[in-house]
């Protein structure tokens, strides 16, 4: 059964007392006095008929309703005992309330709607739903909310109401009334303040800062650092800015400043950083008495001093804390960027479980590490190392530690003075503190400085090598030289004997086994008793002996402080002349020579290859190399080999009794072109043949093997009109290097330049050109003139004879007889007045027009001095062109040297009436026939400048002539007219 509240309106007002009766079942009626609502109990499973009867003194009225479940709204109770508790530091509002007593007998689902408002503006800033079960009990609920804006910035209010959401009820969702506003007042107006104060926040968060002005003050600006951000108003006195995604601040934090009016500055500081990021915790012991735990701080928190990270390291088995002074010291000096804590070893405890907590205002991290003490031993390097070189090949080392260790495996690093490194391993048994351990080191070289250092690690559970100990140095003792010297000789025979320069190569350190102090040289005549000796200081590598022509045995030994080397012997055969075949030519490489030879018949002790490093100098710096027995090839190399130098190499065979010359070779490591020019002499045998002869180039200038010569010849310059041409260069290649002359034939009579160049595999050398003039013989010249002359004369005579014999024919053909003119009297009549057949009046010729162009702009001076005079005598096709040389320009009185017109000339009738005929002919129409002044026109037309009409005294201008041009020509014409009139006069 449910209890429903039915309410209704009373309808028309009446002053009479009215009572109501609600009947919802025929048998269930309840009376309600004065109210317009009543409670009924019924099961809500179907439609219910409800009759409400109003009764007063005048009568009654009944209203009937049919109510279903859907028509009934369930209204949950208003939350009770609502309390808001602010936490200003965390900007959190905590809300507590009691759900109220439900009218329903069973729990129902409801929702609490909570609203947060800025009280001053009554602006809802947050709405949230809180789902809950409501039952008959006075159940307490709580909810909290973190404000983005500090709570002090303005007053915040909270209200709450219930909303029915139960599906079972299947009724309309009714909501309760809001609870009373619970207000948390902001900062009062007694003074201006900023919020939040000195906050520490994580990088990347969004944060709102506000400034609350005190009484009589006004906020002017609010800035984040130097950044002006959009400002929002929280109330009349309060403004806020929000900074999104806060960047890390520096050590002094970031200022947020609020400027007020009247002038006053407020500020707050925010520290933006990261929570701890400590990681890689690792623990070990160095002395089995203390455990040291290291870790890396990871990303910097950017927070210092009171905001920095604090560490605690706890051993969880014993529950003891480690000492972390170093890590917690704000000025901690990081060792390899790591923090550390120390924990003393607990007697009898082998396993340790460490927990590291790193905490700062933004968070905490925990790291674990479990340690078995004996598996994490990182020994110290030996505290004391002593080295004692006791012999030439062995030494002893003494090591000790300040603490005791169990079995250790160790390493020696042995470094020679040549920086060669060698690592040797050894083991040490249990080591007591400060006890000396002796280690023998053998297989060393005599007379060698060694530096020793050592490091050790736990042998049973290798964890880490200790750091290297300090280096100790000692030098092994010397031994007598172990090898004989490499000795050779250079013999110079004179009249009186033989000078033998005995040379040897210093022993390498590995063979000397000590410091060589001197060399002992002994010699004696073969098969004779009596030995002579000499001492050479260590600074020299040769000694000269003056011997007679006897056979000698010479021995050389190197001596150090311990003893001397085995004797090294060479034999000198006094009367033996070394002979060898012609040296063979070998080709080398830039680095040296690859040699091979036929084995010697008597060879028993190998071969000696000898050569001079500087063959061009007096001291040729003899070098030698011993080749083992039965080996007939070797490669000799030297940095001293230079290209273009001829090296002579001798191979000696070594037998028991002597060294004998086996083979000689010459070669170049690299052939170059000859460096000296071939000197040529030329001899002209005839005007067509020249013989050239040249000398040898000195061997030292060959710089390679001469492979031949090239003869270049070229006829010298040939002068033609204004140009100079060289002849074609001819070449004769002579491939025989022994040829020293050549005859060049088929030459012409000219001057020839000859050049001879030697060439090697390295290229062609330079040449010295020589000129020779080849002239024809005088006889030939004479013949060349006389023969054509004679032929010409002969032909002339033949022609003369022919003409003479045929003279009549020639006369008739070329000079016929001319008849004499005869006039008879009746044929000659004269008519008075005008003759019908007038004779031609012969008058001196007066030119129609004279053009004298003094100068033409743009023409050369030479050209301008020559002007062409055009004379028009009226005949279309007959124009006399005269040249007037004008030295000083205009010479009007100069008569042209022109023959007068033929008196028999019959004038063309057209010329008799010029004006009548002038219209028909207009040559200027065809513009292309004449040209304007231009550099391209020929001189004559250039001088004239324009064609003229044959029947006009006007100078004809081309179409489209410029005004300027017109005026110029106009003036020219005037001048010519004047000349014409003057001439007429």
């Amino acid at each position, binding site marked *: 059964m449910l209890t429903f509240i039915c309410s209704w309106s009373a309808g028309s007002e009446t002053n009479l007392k009215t009572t109501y009766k609600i009947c919802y079942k025929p048998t269930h009626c309840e009376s309600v006095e004065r109210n317009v609502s009543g409670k009924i109990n019924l099961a809500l499973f179907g439609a219910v008929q409800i009759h409400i009867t109003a009764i007063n003194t005048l009568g009654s009225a009944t209203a009937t309703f049919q109510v279903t479940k859907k028509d009934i709204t369930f209204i949950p109770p208003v939350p009770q005992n609502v309390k808001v508790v602010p936490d200003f530091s965390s900007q959190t509002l905590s809300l507590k309330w009691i759900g109220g007593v439900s009218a329903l007998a069973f729990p129902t689902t409801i929702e609490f709607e909570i609203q947060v408002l800025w009280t001053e503006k009554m602006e809802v800033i947050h709405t949230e739903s809180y789902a809950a079960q409501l039952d008959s009990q006075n159940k307490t609920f709580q909810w909290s909310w973190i404000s983005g804006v500090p709570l002090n910035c303005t007053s915040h209010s909270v209200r709450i109401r219930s909303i029915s959401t139960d599906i079972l009820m299947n009724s309309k969702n009714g909501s309760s009334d809001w609870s009373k506003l619970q207000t948390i007042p902001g900062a009062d107006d007694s003074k201006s303040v900023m919020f939040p104060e000195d906050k520490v926040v994580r990088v990347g968060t969004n944060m709102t800062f506000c400034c609350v002005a005190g009484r009589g003050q006004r906020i002017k600006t609010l800035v984040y650092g*130097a950044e002006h951000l959009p400002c929002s108003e929280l109330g009349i006195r309060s403004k806020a800015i929000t900074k999104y995604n806060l960047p890390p601040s520096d050590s*002094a*934090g970031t*200022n947020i400043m609020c400027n007020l009016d009247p002038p*006053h*500055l407020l*500020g707050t500081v925010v520290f933006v950083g990261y929570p701890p990021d400590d990681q890689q915790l690792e623990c070990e012991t160095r002395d089995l008495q203390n455990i040291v735990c290291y870790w890396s701080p990871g990303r910097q928190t950017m927070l210092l001093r*009171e905001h920095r990270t604090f560490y605690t390291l706890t051993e969880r088995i014993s529950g003891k804390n480690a000492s972390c002074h170093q890590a917690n010291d704000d000025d901690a000096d990081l060792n390899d960027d790591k923090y550390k804590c120390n924990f003393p070893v607990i007697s009898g405890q082998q396993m340790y479980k460490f927990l590291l907590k790193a905490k700062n205002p933004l968070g905490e991290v925990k790291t674990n590490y479990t340690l078995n003490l004996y598996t994490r031993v990182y020994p110290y390097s030996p505290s004391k190392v002593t080295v004692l070189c006791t012999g030439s090949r062995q030494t002893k080392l003494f090591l000790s530690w300040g603490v005791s260790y169990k079995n250790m495996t160790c390493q020696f690093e042995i470094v020679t003075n040549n920086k060669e490194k060698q690592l040797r391993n050894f083991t040490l048994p249990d080591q007591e503190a400060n006890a000396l351990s002796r280690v023998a080191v053998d297989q060393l070289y005599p007379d060698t400085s060694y530096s020793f250092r050592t490091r050790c690690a736990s042998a049973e559970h290798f964890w880490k090598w200790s750091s290297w100990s300090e280096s100790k140095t000692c030098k092994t003792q010397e031994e007598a030289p172990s090898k004989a010297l490499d000795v050779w000789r250079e013999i110079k025979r004179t009249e009186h004997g033989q000078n033998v320069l005995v040379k040897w190569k210093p022993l390498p350190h590995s063979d000397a086994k000590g410091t060589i102090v001197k060399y002992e040289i002994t010699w004696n005549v073969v098969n004779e008793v009596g030995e002579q000796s000499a001492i050479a200081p260590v600074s020299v590598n040769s000694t000269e002996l003056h011997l007679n022509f006897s056979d000698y045995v010479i021995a050389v030994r190197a001596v150090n402080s311990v003893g001397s080397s085995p004797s090294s012997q060479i034999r000198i055969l006094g009367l033996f002349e070394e002979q060898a075949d012609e040296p063979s030519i070998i080709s080398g490489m830039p680095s040296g020579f690859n040699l091979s030879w036929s084995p010697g018949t008597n060879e028993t002790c190998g071969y000696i290859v000898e050569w001079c490093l500087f063959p061009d100098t007096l001291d040729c710096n003899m070098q030698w190399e011993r080749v083992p027995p039965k080996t007939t090839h070797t490669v000799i190399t030297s940095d001293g080999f230079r290209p273009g130098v001829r090296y002579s190499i001798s191979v000696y065979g070594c037998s028991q009794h002597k060294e004998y010359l086996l083979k000689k070779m010459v070669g170049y490591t690299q052939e170059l072109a000859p460096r000296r020019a071939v000197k040529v002499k030329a001899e002209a045998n005839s005007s067509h043949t020249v013989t050239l002869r040249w000398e040898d180039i000195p061997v030292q200038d060959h710089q390679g093997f001469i492979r031949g010569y090239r003869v270049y010849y070229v006829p010298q310059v040939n002068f033609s009109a204004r140009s100079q041409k060289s002849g074609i260069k001819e070449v004769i290649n002579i491939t025989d290097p022994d040829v020293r002359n050549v005859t060049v034939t088929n030459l012409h009579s000219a001057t020839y330049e000859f050049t001879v160049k030697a060439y090697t595999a390295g290229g062609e050398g330079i040449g010295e050109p020589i000129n020779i003039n080849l002239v024809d013989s005088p006889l030939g010249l004479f013949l060349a003139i006389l023969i054509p002359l004679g032929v010409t004369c002969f032909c002339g005579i033949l022609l003369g004879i022919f003409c003479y014999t045929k003279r009549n024919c020639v006369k008739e053909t070329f000079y016929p007889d001319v008849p004499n003119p005869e006039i008879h009297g009746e044929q000659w009549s004269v008519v008075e007045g005008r003759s019908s057949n007038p004779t031609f009046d012969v008058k001196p010729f007066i030119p129609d027009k004279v053009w004298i162009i003094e100068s033409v702009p743009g023409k050369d001076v030479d050209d301008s001095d020559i002007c062409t005079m055009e004379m028009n005598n009226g005949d279309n096709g007959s124009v006399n062109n005269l040249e007037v040389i004008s030295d000083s320009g205009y010479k009007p009185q100069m008569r042209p040297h022109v023959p007068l017109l033929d008196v028999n000339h019959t004038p063309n009738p057209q010329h008799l009436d010029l004006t009548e005929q002038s219209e028909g002919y207009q040559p200027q129409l065809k513009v292309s026939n004449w040209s304007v002044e231009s550099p391209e026109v020929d001189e004559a037309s250039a001088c004239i400048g324009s064609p003229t009409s044959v029947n006009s005294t006007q100078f004809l201008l081309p179409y489209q002539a410029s005004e300027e041009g017109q005026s110029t020509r106009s003036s020219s014409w005037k001048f010519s007219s004047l000349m014409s009139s003057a001439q007429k006069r």
Partner: protein
Amino acid sequence: MATGVRHDAIEDNISFALSDCYAKAEALARKVHSEAKQITESYREKQGLSQDLNLDSIDGVPESGTSKWAELTEEERLRENAAAFAALHRLLGTVLKEQQDDLTPGDYKFHDALLSLLAKVEALAETTKQLLLSLGHVLPRAEEEREEEGLRYFQKKRRGYKVIVELSGWALRAVRDFARLKRRNRREVGGKREVKKRGSRR
């Protein structure tokens, strides 16, 4: 007669000592001004403060800006200087500690610069006090140390800035004051000698 000569010699010595003291004080004040000026800039940058920072509402720091300075006697000026430098020395010590502890931990170079300035301010305060004593003036009353706890970071920053700015101002004015005193002392010594010379001629 002998007593008179001796008295003159003592007076001369005192004058010389005073002159020397003025010169030292002037040189010290000059150095303090120079260093404080340099530190002002680096302090402002390190603390992220703007150049037009309003420092009016910060109490407890002697302010160098006053219009009444010309009205003060030399004795009063010396006393004001002595009191100000003593107060500024104490405040600068606090500033240094705040920098080391909170604001710029790890910036040892900056702390050294502040420490150097602190030593000079102490010397200047002491020299000014000695001058007062030498001239027979009364020392300023020792200011009671005010415990200021719970200052926010920003307040510390601002106060530190004001201390250095004011120190620079006080030092600059002190340079002028000591220079003036030095000149006056010279004139007085010169005048006395002139009088003595004339007296001896007569």
